[in-house]
């Protein structure tokens, strides 16, 4: 079985995101980049299958600017067999639909049984590229997947919904968008890191993939930090019951939320 994981490099989740000078993008000077968290869950879901069955191959692909190569290097260090990097001027600032079309070209060449994407990238948080990739390919997709099992020629996919999981039988090929699951993404091992350093990451120029790079009109007009908070009333030092009464009184009379 061939698995292909699509991943995106985003600001690390511990970064305090600040708005840039243009007011429409974030300040990227000196920030740490990482594989988007849900894409790491997608990698883990794929690599788990490889752990149990060495005939399984796991490939990674990313579309992005030059720095995003590091994300693929990290995916190789986690245990991916190979990686493809789509970059060049054409790969920057792509809309969601164009990204899906570019990825579809790579998928068509790799011909995997399953494509896994994170449920959303934690930069634009759209959750669009996975389902759009399935649409461009003409494949079905299952979103918020947390588990994958082989069932003969078909697959069983666990989809997180409110109150539990729906288990769906899916044909191959299929696109999954992966939700956080109990299984935390593995850390790269030292031998994994050494091996990854020696691996070639073939590059493709987005502009030469014969994909339509246009997307429907959409433009961020402004970015703002969340409304400043603070200066809250802090209650302490007192009898627990009295503090509780005081808090309830404030929520009723001042905040008017009870």
């Amino acid at each position, binding site marked *: 079985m061939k698995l292909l994981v699509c991943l995106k490099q985003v600001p690390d989740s511990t970064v305090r995101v600040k708005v840039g000078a243009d007011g429409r993008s974030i300040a990227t000077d000196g920030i740490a980049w990482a594989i988007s968290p849900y894409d790491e869950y997608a990698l883990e879901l794929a690599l788990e299958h490889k752990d149990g069955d060495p005939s399984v191959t796991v490939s990674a692909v990313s579309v992005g600017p030059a720095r995003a190569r590091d994300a693929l290097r990290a995916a190789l260090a986690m245990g991916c067999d190979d990686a493809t990097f789509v970059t060049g001027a054409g790969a920057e600032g792509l809309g969601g639909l164009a990204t899906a079309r570019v990825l579809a070209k790579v998928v068509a060449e790799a011909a995997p049984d399953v494509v896994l994407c994170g449920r959303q990238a934690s930069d634009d948080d759209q959750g669009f590229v996975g389902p759009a990739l399935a649409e461009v390919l003409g494949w079905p997709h299952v979103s918020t997947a947390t588990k994958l099992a082989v069932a003969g020629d078909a697959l069983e996919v666990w989809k997180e919904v409110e109150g539990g999981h729906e288990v769906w039988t899916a044909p191959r090929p299929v696109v999954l968008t992966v939700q956080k699951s109990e299984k935390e993404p593995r850390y790269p091992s030292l031998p994994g890191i050494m091996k990854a350093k020696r691996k070639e990451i073939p590059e493709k120029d987005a502009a030469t993939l014969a994909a339509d790079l246009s997307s429907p*009109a959409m433009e961020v007009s402004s*970015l703002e930090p969340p409304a400043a908070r603070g200066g809250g009333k802090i209650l302490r030092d007192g009898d627990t019951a009295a503090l*509780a009464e005081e808090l309830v009184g404030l929520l009723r009379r001042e905040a008017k*939320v009870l």
Partner: protein
Amino acid sequence: MKIWIIVERSGPELRRVSRELAAKAAEMGEATALEVTGLERYSALPAVAALTEKAKSGAPDLVLVGATPMGRDLGARLAARLEWAYAADCTGVAPEAGAVVVTRGMYADKVRAEVRVGLPAVVTVRANAFALAEGAQPPEVAPVPADPSVDTLAFARFEPTASTGAKVPLAEARVVVSGGRGLRGPENWHLVEELADSLGAGLGASRAVTDAGWRPNEEQVGQTGKSVAPDLYIAVGISGAIQHLAGMTSSRTIVAINRDPDADIFKVCDYGVVADALQFIPAFTAAVKKAKASA
């Protein structure tokens, strides 16, 4: 502007977010509420096929869907099929010439963006983004029969999460009570549940707690979990990691209960109580019940 709202039900009732969207759409233009019917379980392909067919003749400018698990799945695939613009998980939608300007969180809700989205477009909207007047009548809903013949996926079975304990869905709750490591163990969660029950609240949890397996993942608030913006958010025994704060700082009123006076959660709260959660919550629950009884 011609607006479609794709509604969703929770049991026989329309979901609150669907009603919020219908009310908002009626203010913005000519609104039609549609429901995909004939599927025992929602599945993207049959729903998208039916809606695409209907969109050919109906030609809406804007399709609004609740940013629920179903809505985000359907909205993305429908927009891709139609090759329309798509904006997910929005908290505001304002019409403009030939476009809508949506408000939405980016970078795991660490920043708020205004995005100009060209029409036609599909937009998914978070619950609690628009007010719903008391006693507002639910919209009339027209059925759109799904086309199950196009599905290549087959539903096999449902596996419920063991005792989620939540009586109010987290994403739509007007009040949320979230617990963290300060509860010291899953055996103390009944305290959080009792407080939530007294308030009619949804249940949330910090990542530390879901990672430890004390609570199911679906209750996690923050990055890699849910973003919520209720009227009242009560964080119990949660220190306030940046990833958690991103998912709840848009709440109207925030209450923090933590025994560490230096916890980051106190920097974003409106009311903080420096106290041990295990001792404070029972007293708080009792005070809430007493206040509600006298109301």
